């Protein structure tokens, strides 16, 4: 039987919005890695390194902030997929689990910010 | 050499395949189906499957409901056997994983159904057929010995000296024509609703198995009994399950009046009452619709007159819990929500009570040839099938046919008959010649549509002698024109045009038998209503119609007495 096999579509991730969001979500990992590297430099220098105040450096870190925040939102939204919570047979809807995750994120961020800034 | 060749991969075919595999794992069993098995039309069954399990229910009551529902045309020995085996088969399905709906304590739940005196219809929400078919199909995957020919189309049975020796089939994907020698053959190809223009039946239901058997010399039985389901969506013909009425839905006419009370079906009650009003049998409900139409109390739409099915009072929660598919279908295909809107419905061709004449084991008069399911007529459905009897039917008779065919294959081990290869070559020549033969006659679709309208006009809910007689001539003429039909596609790969043409040929043969049997039966019984013979005539017609194919290709109708055991013919009483 002769069949036709479609050629590989190199731009598949541009074909619909879900794919594009997916790739954007995965590429946040580059900024996660960058953020860790940058924070290592912060530890090494005992604070933001000397070049941190350069405008281009701040620009990169603004992007890194946006990317890690996007990571946080998407990652915490996906959590209810792997964990189905049932209370007395009733399945806790995804939005409640997601809401809980996002609240926890805000609380943790607040605590971290407080600890970091309390001596300033 | 295949031991048991099963034609058709729906509920009956798959049940038969498992039965063969369980009987004797050394037997070669194969399922040939023109679609992947899980596409078969069993998948569309919605409401449920009847089987006696309630403590207040008895086999005899189910028998009585079935026999009176069938207007005493059922063979009562078959009905008794069927009803005794049905619960076992439904439990067997449960053991194979069918997700039956449940009571809070974990037992299988049952619901009421049309024409049934007790609640005995097992259901998996309102996708019972879907779950049943997928459970069966997935269970067959456990049996490595079940060989499948997916998307192969059987065009001819090989029969020599009163015995079947296999079949010839086309591999639709490649166009390859192959002779499949077999010791026994089970036909399980379903019904032929597509001979009518407006039907709940899927496109694939073109009566192929009935035509194969009929052409091979086996008689068809009770072909005039065509069931109209009272509630189909206009335009698409999509079925709105009887479960919608069993859960409490009302049928109302254009004045909002529950019109069934005018047709000796009882008096309206707010909650459903068994064997009454909306839970009357399908033939009587469909006939009541025609009378409403004549009285001008139906609503005109571009797709014909309709009445309404009212589910609004059930509320969203109950609809979602018990009949979610009804809501899904209405929203997707009719752009309305049954929780807030009336559903327009009209009677729609749904089921063939008739089919290939078989005994209780599915055996046809041709040795080694068996049939089961809608394509067969045992007969347990008589002149009108009760809703939720067809799913247990495919299971009970699928299994029985499988066991019998396996036994036949084991006891007939001689070598292949010389006729096999010769007949196979004949068929191969015929089909090869057909493919894109360049004929420029009429389009297949036009011929098909003309056949469908002829059938609707002559063999609809009400029939009359003159129109039927004219239809005999029209169909004979159509058969001639169809042989000259236009075939443009000369491709061997997935040539659906050739397939459609072969299916049209099957449908025309079957259509002729329907009309011939309807013309011959000069009485009114169940789904067969003659305006020129309005009474049931037990003296003349307490008998099955048996139709053979005459040498010139025309149908020749005879009668065969009905088997009566314990329930003498009586009056059909509903709602009183």
């Amino acid at each position, binding site marked *: 039987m002769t069949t036709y096999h479609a050629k*590989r579509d*190199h731009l598949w*991730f541009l074909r619909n919005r879900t794919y594009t969001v997916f*790739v954007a979500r*995965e*590429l*946040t*990992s*580059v900024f*996660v*890695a960058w*953020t*860790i*590297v*940058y*924070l*290592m430099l*912060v*530890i*090494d*220098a*005992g*604070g*933001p390194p000397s070049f*941190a*105040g350069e405008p281009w*450096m*701040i620009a*990169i*870190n*603004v992007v*890194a*902030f946006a990317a*890690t*925040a996007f*990571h*946080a939102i998407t*990652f*915490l939204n996906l959590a209810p997929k*792997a964990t189905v919570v049932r209370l007395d047979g009733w399945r806790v809807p995804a939005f409640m689990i997601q809401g809980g995750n996002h609240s*926890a*994120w805000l609380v*943790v*961020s607040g605590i*971290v*910010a407080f*600890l*970091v*800034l309390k*001596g*300033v | 050499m295949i031991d048991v060749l099963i034609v058709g991969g729906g509920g009956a075919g798959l049940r038969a395949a498992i039965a063969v595999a369980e009987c004797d794992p050394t037997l070669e069993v194969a399922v040939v189906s023109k679609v992947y098995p899980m596409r078969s039309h069993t998948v569309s069954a919605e409401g449920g499957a009847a089987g006696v399990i309630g403590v207040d229910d008895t086999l005899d009551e189910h028998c009585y409901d079935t026999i009176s529902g069938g207007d005493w045309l059922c063979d009562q020995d078959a009905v008794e056997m069927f009803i005794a085996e049905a619960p076992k088969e439904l439990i067997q399905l449960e053991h194979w994983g069918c997700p039956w709906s449940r009571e809070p304590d974990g037992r299988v739940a049952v619901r009421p159904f049309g024409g049934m005196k007790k609640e005995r219809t097992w259901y998996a929400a309102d996708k019972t057929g879907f779950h049943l078919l997928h459970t069966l199909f997935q269970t067959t995957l456990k049996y490595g010995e079940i060989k499948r020919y997916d998307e192969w189309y059987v065009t001819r049975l090989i029969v020599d000296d009163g015995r079947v020796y296999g079949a010839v089939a086309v591999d639709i994907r490649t166009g390859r024509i192959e002779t499949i020698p077999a010791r026994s053959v089970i036909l399980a190809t379903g019904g032929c609703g597509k001979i009518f223009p407006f039907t709940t039946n899927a496109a694939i239901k073109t009566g192929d198995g009935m035509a194969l058997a009929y052409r091979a010399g086996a008689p068809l039985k009770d072909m005039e009994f065509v069931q109209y389901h009272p509630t189909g969506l206009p335009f698409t013909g999509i079925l709105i399950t009887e479960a919608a009425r069993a859960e409490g839905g009302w049928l109302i006419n254009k004045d909002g009046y529950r019109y069934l009370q005018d047709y000796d079906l009882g008096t309206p009650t707010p909650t459903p009452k068994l064997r009454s009003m909306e839970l009357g049998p399908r033939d009587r409900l469909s006939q009541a619709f025609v009378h409403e139409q004549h009285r001008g109390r139906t609503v005109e739409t571009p797709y014909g007159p309709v009445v309404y099915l009212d589910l609004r009072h059930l509320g969203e929660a109950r609809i979602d819990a018990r009949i979610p598919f009804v809501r899904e279908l209405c929203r997707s295909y009719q752009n309305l929500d049954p929780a807030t809107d009336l559903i327009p419905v009209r009677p729609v061709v749904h089921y063939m009570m008739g089919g290939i004449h078989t005994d209780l084991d599915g055996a046809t008069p041709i040795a080694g040839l068996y049939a089961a399911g809608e394509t067969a007529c045992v007969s347990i459905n008589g002149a009108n099938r009760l809703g939720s009897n067809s799913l247990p039917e495919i299971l009970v008779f699928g299994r029985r046919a499988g066991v019998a065919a396996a036994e036949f294959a084991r006891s007939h081990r001689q070598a292949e008959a010389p006729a096999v290869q010769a007949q196979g070559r004949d068929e191969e020549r015929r089909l090869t010649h057909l493919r894109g033969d360049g004929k420029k006659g009429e389009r297949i679709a036009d011929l098909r549509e003309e056949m469908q309208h002829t059938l609707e006009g002559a063999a609809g809910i009400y029939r009359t002698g003159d129109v039927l007689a004219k239809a005999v001539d029209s169909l004979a003429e159509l058969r001639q024109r169809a042989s000259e039909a236009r075939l443009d596609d000369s491709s061997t790969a997935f040539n659906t045009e050739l397939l459609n043409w072969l299916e049209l040929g099957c449908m025309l043969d079957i259509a002729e038998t329907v009309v011939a049997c309807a013309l011959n039966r000069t009485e009114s019984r169940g789904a067969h209503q003659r305006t020129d013979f309005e009474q049931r005539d037990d003296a003349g017609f307490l008998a099955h119609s048996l139709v053979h194919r005459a040498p010139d290709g025309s149908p020749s109708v005879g009668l065969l007495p009905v088997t009566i055991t314990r329930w003498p013919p009586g009056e059909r009483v509903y709602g009183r």
Partner: protein
Amino acid sequence: MRRKRTAEPYLWLLFSGGGVAAAFFLPVLILLFGVLVPAGVVGRPDVAALTENVVVRLAIVVIFTLCLFHAAHRIRFTSEELLNIGRIDLLLAVVCYGGALAGGVVTAVLLF
């Protein structure tokens, strides 16, 4: 389909843990140390004082390592999907997870 032992479940757990750690900690940390402090919006915190406690230092090593595993996992799969380089999966895996592990070690060295 081959049946064989796979390291994926362990890697996935590290990836998931890292995803949670990154989600909870990184946005606020990069905002503070990468943007607000260098831009002078808030004062300069004393990082040495903050990491004085050994528990904090251990937590940082764990969080950083997990975050790097998370990034390594996604970079491995995404580069395979975008660049069609699935056939060098093993090499990619070694580079990505090896990098993550190295990062964890460097963090520990810096802190202890």
